[in-house]
């Protein structure tokens, strides 16, 4: 038990914050928990969760990707344009994922193989993709989408369930793989110490390369699942998405320097930051405070981390003093 508490210390503190928030909302504004509201809240945050899954991998491997918002916009528009050509929706899905994966592969090549710093590379991509898109679409929305586009032509309630199931499945697959597959553990190893990983015979550049491809693929899935919720697609979606995703990952307890973090933590982080906005409305607080409060939560997460670290360290040495007779 002690080790579980220790290993998941950061996740636990984020979960405690989420629980506290929900309790406050439950007391002051129980109508928050109306099924319709909860459903909206969850569906609204699933695209962010998918991006955050990829971002967790990227941060675990010791990198960062701030180009995801722009990739998201490209994938969204691509989804609409492809659907309008009459391509069947499953193929649109695959194609958008590939487009995302290709953009990720470009990042991965520059960062993994050519060893360029990820913050600079993805900053360049952030600007490049967004401006390229603006130039091509001239700011216009993609309209006149085919019948089977919105909600996959299944209607809102079934469509929402499909979105939910796909997201859940991806989350489960990644959470399980990261913990139980050897390749999942090499992601941690590379992020923990790339040189040590190299000496242990791990092909670090390749691991980084693939993590960025996965990131891009998830951006594609996220963009499509987001786009099908509406009847038209704006040319400028996904602005600020990278910050949302990074914040969720960090609040969920991942170390920004790599090597430490879990997807459960990221899920809690997305839930916490995603709930705040809606909760504020229900608590009668001006929603303009949302960003400020999110910022405060990020700082609080880091601070509690440090404080808990102290406590736990004291406990441990206590143990050390009594169990090391020699």
């Amino acid at each position: 038990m002690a080790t579980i508490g220790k290993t998941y210390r950061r996740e636990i503190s984020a979960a405690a914050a989420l629980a506290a928030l929900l309790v406050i909302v439950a007391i002051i504004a129980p109508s928050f928990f109306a099924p319709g509201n909860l459903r909206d809240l969850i569906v609204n945050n699933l695209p962010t969760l998918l991006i955050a899954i990829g971002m967790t991998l990227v941060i675990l491997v010791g990198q960062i990707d701030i180009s995801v918002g722009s990739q998201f916009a490209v994938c969204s528009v691509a989804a609409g344009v492809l659907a309008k050509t009459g391509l069947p929706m499953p193929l649109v899905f695959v194609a958008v994922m590939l487009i995302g994966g290709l953009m990720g592969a470009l990042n991965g090549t520059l960062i993994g193989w050519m060893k360029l710093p990820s913050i600079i590379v993805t900053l360049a991509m952030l600007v490049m993709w967004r401006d390229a898109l603006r130039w091509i679409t001239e700011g216009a929305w993609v309209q006149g989408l085919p019948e089977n586009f919105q909600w996959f032509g299944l209607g809102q309630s079934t469509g929402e369930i499909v979105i939910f199931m796909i997201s859940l499945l991806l989350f489960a697959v990644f959470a399980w793989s990261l913990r139980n597959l050897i390749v999942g553990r090499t992601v941690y190893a590379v992020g923990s110490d790339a040189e040590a990983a190299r000496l242990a015979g791990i092909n670090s550049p390749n691991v980084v390369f693939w993590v960025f491809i996965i990131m891009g693929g998830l951006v594609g899935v996220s963009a499509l699942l987001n786009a099908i919720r509406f009847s038209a697609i704006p040319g400028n979606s996904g602005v600020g998405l990278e910050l949302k995703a990074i914040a969720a990952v960090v609040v969920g307890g991942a170390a920004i320097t790599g090597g430490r973090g879990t997807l459960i933590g990221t899920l809690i982080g997305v839930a916490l930051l995603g709930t705040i906005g809606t909760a504020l409305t229900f608590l009668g607080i001006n929603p303009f405070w949302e960003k400020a409060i999110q910022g405060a939560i990020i700082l609080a997460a880091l601070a509690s981390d440090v404080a808990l670290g102290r406590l736990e360290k004291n406990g441990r040495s206590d143990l050390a003093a009594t169990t090391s007779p020699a």
Partner: protein
Amino acid sequence: MTLLKADHITKSYAGVHALRDASFELRAGEVHALVGENGAGKSTLIKALTGAVIPDSGEILLDGTRITENSPGISKSLGIAAIYQQPALFPELTVAENIAIGQERDGSVFGMVNWARRKQRAKELLDRIGARISPEQIAAELSMPQQQLVEIARALGANARVLVLDEPTASLSEDDTRNLFRVIRELRASGVGMIYISHRLEELPAIADRVTVLRDGQTIDTHEMADVSSKQLIQLMVGRELSGVFPKREVPRGEVVFELRGFGSREAGIRGIDLTIRAGEIVGIAGLVGAGRTELAKTIFGLVPPDTGVMLLRGKQITIGHPSEAIDLHISYLPEDRRRHGVVLDLPISSNITLASLKHLSGFKGMNFRKEKEIAAEYTRRLGVKTPAIYNAVSTLSGGNQQKVALSRWLVTQPAVLILDEPTQGVDVGSKAEIHELMMELAEQGVAILMISSELPELLGMCDRIAVMNGGTIAKVFDRTDATQDLILSAALGH
């Protein structure tokens, strides 16, 4: 039978020849020692063998077949395992995972981790070398010798045919070294070829079959270990003779400079420590891994808060909440883990040396860079730091030369109390003698010195008194005249 062969290897870094036409041959079932001064090219040679460094020219042959496109992954798959001089553990991961990673060569993307087996395997390997470390501990929490032991366990786990050990005993105590030697002998009996690098020349006759000497990147000579004395070895390494005697001189003892009374810290796991050091005195601390030696030093220096007892400097009670306060009181501490705490790898050698004395080097007119250069030049010369320029980054130095830089930083602070944690780890014999001489000079100037060392001969040779720690407290204090290796060992073991 030749197992592994390095044939005319050359490697240079920006004009510095790390290896020049070096050749080396390892037989199956032998322990082959590799010796040479700091910067002679030992680590570079073994890195070339494992593919961690790609030589400019020359080839590596395993069983007579040339290894092409060498890399750590490839050499590993061919059965070559290595412990590098700089610990290469993953700080965020557990001990069990550190031992397992890179070894579960399943190959497929969908290979699964067996957590129970990992833990079991880690436990077996750690038990084999007698290391009491929990497989579930996070590597970042391990002390330097513990990291070393985990590295050894990991290398054993590879079940390699060639095992390379680059200074495995640099921070290990006598007891751990003995366990390691037992395992090395077992492996030798089963036909494993081992390359063993060490600056502790006195341990070589007990473990090595042959020895190869490297000097300035060249392999000078290979001998049967039984045919050479350590004196001859030194002669071959350094190119001149060394006395081999510790430069210990009688220094009149002055007033009590530093004193601990009932000193302890729950966080550090130390308790009830009574200790005095007089001006001009060198007090040694012996003990096994985990006895609390480094923890004591850290607590004195303000890295861990004490919670019981008092600390006195020249009879006045002091409290130290932060290392900067210790430095202001002229208490200096050379940490054990040079890579993490001892040097700033990316900074130049000169800045590293003056880092703890910037206050004395800067004034109204900013930094006095001329003075910095003078100081750096003097210490690099005296300690024999092998480098083309003092403005090179410390990361370009060999391990032992990094250690000399870490030590220089604290020697220039003009301390009243100097705490040295493994000051000569990884340092070659010649420079070791120079460091001991410097310590003696400081003692003669009235500095109170506390030296932690896992090398008993060094403690016996240099210290006026030796305190032996066990279970977080001082078990026994020996005077120079009655201390012997056996007495210290049995006190350390708690007999």
